[in-house]
């Protein structure tokens, strides 16, 4: 149980909301430049510019650095007293203060000593730091006396008890503004040159201060030197170094949640258009929230953090109102790097911010100012990014500017910036096509308009191309053979779904790949051998040349695989395939007596529909193998089809009518007949009894139920023909808070009436002695398919 769970379990509590709005915030000091003093910041140990003491040594480019490049060094300190040190050319120590930093980690936790010294080590500040197995940036400072000699330096040193080897990267050092005696780091900046280079600055704003108070507000819309706006680094540990500033708000109608923090009680209301997983349309409607925030007539200083650090700030004091100013200063709030996080918690002694549970991680998509100055902030979850179109449309004039020979590893184009940037983590491949040849783009020089390419890919052959040859960018979904000129293989649909999300701009941390891949390996496994070409399981293969909504591509994959996708309350996209809940998955129980608010349970059979939007189906048709030149919008556009029909459902004594679900797939490979048949059968299993929807209200205490969860509903509202209560296995497809603090759920009946066979772990007892949870695994039946001495229905294969 988490601390939030403990609060939920209390009988009486006072809820409170917390909204954190993060906006882009410049890490510079206005109209002030501070040089970054150290050389070769990502090549720690390079001779001449780094000194070694004792038996110290180093290995360059040993491991991946926090920025993803393989430029981190390993520093070897075999003996106590060994050290590696930097030097600076013009960082004069005397009477000056500096802040130095370095990223460190080690194969096993331990310590190492960091020193800041003058050139003779007559003045020294030493800190023993604790290193873990993950990258951390260590920051320290020193104010040197007037007697300090020469330039200031930083050392990594081994003392007794310290580690003998550490990985290091990103050494930075800069003079403190006003020579303040404090840690004043700037975001890490790379200095690649070994010579004096005063253009590499930790703070690099070159705006001219007119000394009239009209300065920036450290936001991009108000920036007076946009070319040097300091957006920080995403891999830093603190918001200010990430180039972000966060404002916190709580409900107006409630006590301050954390009296020792600045949390503005501006929230008037929060309404949700809850995320819904539409099983029939295979679409997940974004979770949308609207937050209404009261205005404040006395907004005060905008930059207290900067002013307290000694930076120049805009001196316009207490004019205007909070939101009217905010929306002018942070006009770029829809930037995907900006965010609105919503948390829920309770008021109580000892309650801290960490005890508040995240309810949503949103992008800000719109802001509306009311006549009273109140702001309505419209937010959507990150699934909104799927509305992006890809591949990018390349201009007709963006052609080869120099003829390319078949062996050239680089090609010259009119505008390299029009092409997608290849990701550093290999999450997807950028592919272009010139004439009949496809190439993978591995590098992009937007200044020189050069693309670094791998030739003859995706089953094509490298060839010469003439000057002014047209270029298009395409998307290849599949797996290249080890010999790329051979016909490519398919790729698992789950892997493709993850790749599409990465193409949309979501980061790896924003996708629950672990769960999605677990679903893949359990229910949709596949293998590819890129050497022999052997494959197994369900693999999709497709080339997309026309610009398409990425959401459309995801929907097409979901239709065939019956994949549910949703954004969790933690802002991470997760998913499940339609399949029985495994015995290892705990079914959350929801009952009348313990959970459901009286008179709130509604059941909708959702039986009403037409041939294009059927709640219940009697036959499923899957068409695949698109005919060349066809759009794929109708069955006739495909070479192959398979139909699954349940005659008993269509009989006059059954439902007496046909209801057809049609799946048109551009993804299933032409030679694959197993996937369409399996998909058709699973869709029939899923929808033969329709998609019954259960709506209910729960008390706030059941906030532990999350969207996507399987729940077991036991309610007197759900009965068999005999009148006995029947428990139903449901999946939560929508969750939203109500205005009075309760929770409204919508759950889809999984219609999984049968018990399915799962391999049990060793040591389980016989069926009669097994617990209910143990009986969720499979037991062998008799010839009639019955198990146990009571002869109950046995298990089926999925």
């Amino acid at each position, binding site marked *: 149980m988490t601390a939030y769970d403990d609060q939920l379990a209390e009988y009486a509590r006072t809820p409170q909301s917390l909204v954190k709005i993060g906006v882009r915030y410049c890490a510079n000091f206005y109209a002030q430049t501070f040089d970054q003093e150290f050389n070769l910041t990502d090549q720690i140990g390079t001779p001449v510019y780094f000194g070694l003491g004792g038996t110290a040594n180093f290995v360059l480019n040993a491991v991946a650095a926090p920025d993803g490049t393989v430029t981190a060094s390993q520093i070897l300190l075999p003996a106590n007293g060994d050290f590696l040190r930097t030097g600076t050319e013009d960082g004069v120590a005397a009477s000056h203060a500096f802040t130095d930093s370095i990223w460190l980690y080690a194969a096993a936790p331990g310590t190492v000593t960091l020193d800041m010294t003058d050139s003779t080590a007559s003045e020294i500040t030493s800190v023993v730091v604790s290193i873990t197995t993950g990258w951390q940036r260590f920051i320290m400072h020193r104010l040197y006396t007037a007697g300090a000699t020469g330039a200031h330096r930083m050392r990594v040193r081994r003392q007794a008890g310290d580690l003998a080897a550490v990985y290091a990267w990103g050494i930075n050092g800069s003079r403190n503004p006003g020579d303040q005696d404090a840690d004043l780091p700037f975001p890490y900046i790379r200095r690649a040159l070994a010579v004096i280079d005063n253009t590499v600055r930790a703070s690099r704003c070159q705006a001219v201060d007119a000394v009239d108070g009209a300065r920036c507000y450290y936001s991009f819309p108000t920036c007076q030197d946009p070319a040097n706006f300091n957006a920080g680094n995403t891999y830093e540990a603190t918001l200010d170094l990430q180039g972000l500033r966060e404002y916190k708000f709580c409900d107006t109608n409630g*006590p301050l949640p954390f009296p020792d923090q*600045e949390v503005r009680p501006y929230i008037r209301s929060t309404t949700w258009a809850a995320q819904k997983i539409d099983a029939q349309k295979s679409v997940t409607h974004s979770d949308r929230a609207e937050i209404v925030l009261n205005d404040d007539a006395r907004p*005060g200083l905008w930059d207290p*953090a900067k002013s307290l650090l000694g930076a120049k700030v805009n001196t316009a004091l207490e004019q205007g109102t909070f939101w009217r100013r905010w929306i002018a200063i942070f006009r770029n709030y829809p930037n995907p790097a900006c965010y609105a996080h919503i948390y829920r918690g309770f008021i109580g002694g000892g309650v801290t911010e960490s005890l508040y549970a995240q309810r949503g991680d949103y992008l800000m998509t719109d802001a509306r100012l009311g006549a009273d100055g109140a702001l309505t902030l419209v937010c959507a979850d990150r699934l909104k990014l799927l509305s992006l179109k890809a591949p990018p449309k390349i201009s007709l004039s963006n052609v080869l500017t120099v003829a390319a020979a078949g062996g050239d590893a680089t090609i010259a184009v009119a505008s390299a910036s029009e092409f997608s940037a290849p990701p550093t983590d290999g999450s997807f491949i950028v592919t272009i096509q010139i004439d009949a040849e496809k190439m993978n783009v591995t590098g992009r020089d937007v200044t020189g308009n050069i693309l670094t390419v791998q030739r003859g890919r995706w089953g094509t052959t490298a060839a010469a191309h003439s000057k002014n040859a047209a270029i298009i960018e395409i998307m290849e979904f599949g797996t290249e053979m080890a010999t790329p000129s051979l016909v490519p293989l398919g790729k698992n649909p789950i892997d493709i779904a993850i790749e599409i999300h990465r193409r949309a701009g979501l980061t790896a941390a924003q996708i629950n790949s672990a769960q999605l891949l677990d679903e893949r390996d359990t229910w949709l496994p596949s293998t590819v051998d890129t050497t022999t070409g052997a494959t197994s399981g369900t693999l999709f293969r497709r080339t997309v040349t026309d610009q398409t909504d990425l959401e459309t591509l995801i929907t097409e994959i979901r239709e065939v695989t019956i994949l549910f996708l949703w954004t969790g309350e933690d802002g991470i996209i997760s998913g499940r395939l339609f399949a029985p809940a495994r015995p290892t998955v705990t079914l959350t129980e929801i009952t*009348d*007596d313990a*959970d459901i608010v009286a008179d709130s349970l509604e059941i909708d059979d959702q039986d009403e529909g037409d041939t294009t939007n059927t709640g219940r189906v009697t036959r499923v048709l899957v068409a695949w193998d698109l005919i060349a030149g066809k759009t794929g919008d109708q069955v006739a556009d495909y070479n192959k089809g398979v139909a699954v029909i349940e005659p008993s459902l269509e009989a006059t004594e059954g439902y007496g009518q046909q209801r057809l679900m049609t799946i048109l797939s551009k993804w299933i490979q032409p030679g694959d007949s197993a996937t369409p048949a399996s998909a058709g059968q699973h869709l029939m299993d899923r929808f033969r009894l329709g998609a019954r929807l259960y709506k209910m209200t729960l*008390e706030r205490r059941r906030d532990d139920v999350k969207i996507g969860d399987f729940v077991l509903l036991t309610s007197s509202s759900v009965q068999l023909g005999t009148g006995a209560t029947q428990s139903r296995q449901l999946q939560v497809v929508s969750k939203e808070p109500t205005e009075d*603090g*309760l929770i409204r759920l919508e759950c889809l009946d999984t219609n999984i009436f049968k018990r399915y066979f799962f391999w049990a772990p060793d040591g389980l007892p016989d069926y009669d002695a097994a617990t209910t949870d143990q009986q969720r695994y499979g037991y062998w039946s008799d010839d009639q398919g019955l198990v146990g001495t009571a002869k109950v229905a046995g298990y089926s294969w999925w």
Partner: protein
Amino acid sequence: MALPVIAWRTILRNAGAVVSASGTASEYAASNVKDFRSFTLWKAAAVTSPQYIDVDLGVSGAVDADCLVVVNSNSVANASNLKVYADTVTPPTNVVQASYAPTSDAVEFKTFTAPGAKRYWRIEFNTGSPPFAAAPYAGVVMLGLKMSMPEYIGPDIDPFLYDVEAVTPRTVGGHALGVLLRGVPRRGSLRFGADAGLARSFLTSDFNGFLTGRYLRHEPWCFQLDSGDSDFSPARWLRRPVGGAAPRQPVGGTYARFMVPLPVEEAMMEAAL
């Protein structure tokens, strides 16, 4: 019984006043204590004792004060004493309120003998057993001359009134599933002048200044009902509610005396019961 007191003046907001502090944690500027917002804080940069807030009123800005208000601080929780200095030199050394232990972190109100007009004022947070457990902080600090009411107020204010909204859903079987509480600002009305009315001279001077300079602007102020009674002495942080009006009603058909009903609500929400 003591007469009600309203503290609404604050020298920290005088023209030319410069507010500084012994140190400030990042994003917790000293100027935050003068904006009437209990949720914007000054917070000390260190836990050493003492920490302080200084006010410099400028060459020709010296003023007098006889009461201190501190709203939303951690003084009680932090075992911090408060002390007030006022002087013609800086740093001020003349003590006008000796070190004492405050009784409320929500709204602390303390009166002292006015020292006469001074330029430099200091509000000090100190502890007898340094260092502090946590850095001292305060949301609002006010120093100024209090306004003592010449008469008791009418009986329309219930100092013990709490408003709490609760949502209590039940199951089909009638079991209560839980309670979600929502605090509501305490509301009431201060009826100054009761039946006999306030003297016109009071209304046209001090009280009018309070009405126009603070009450009608929806800015908060401090109110103490009766310093002589422990039940009624805790100070309140009040403001005019939206839509509230303060009609001055002549008593007895003349304008020699007035009665003024002031609708009020808590400016800082207290935790719901």
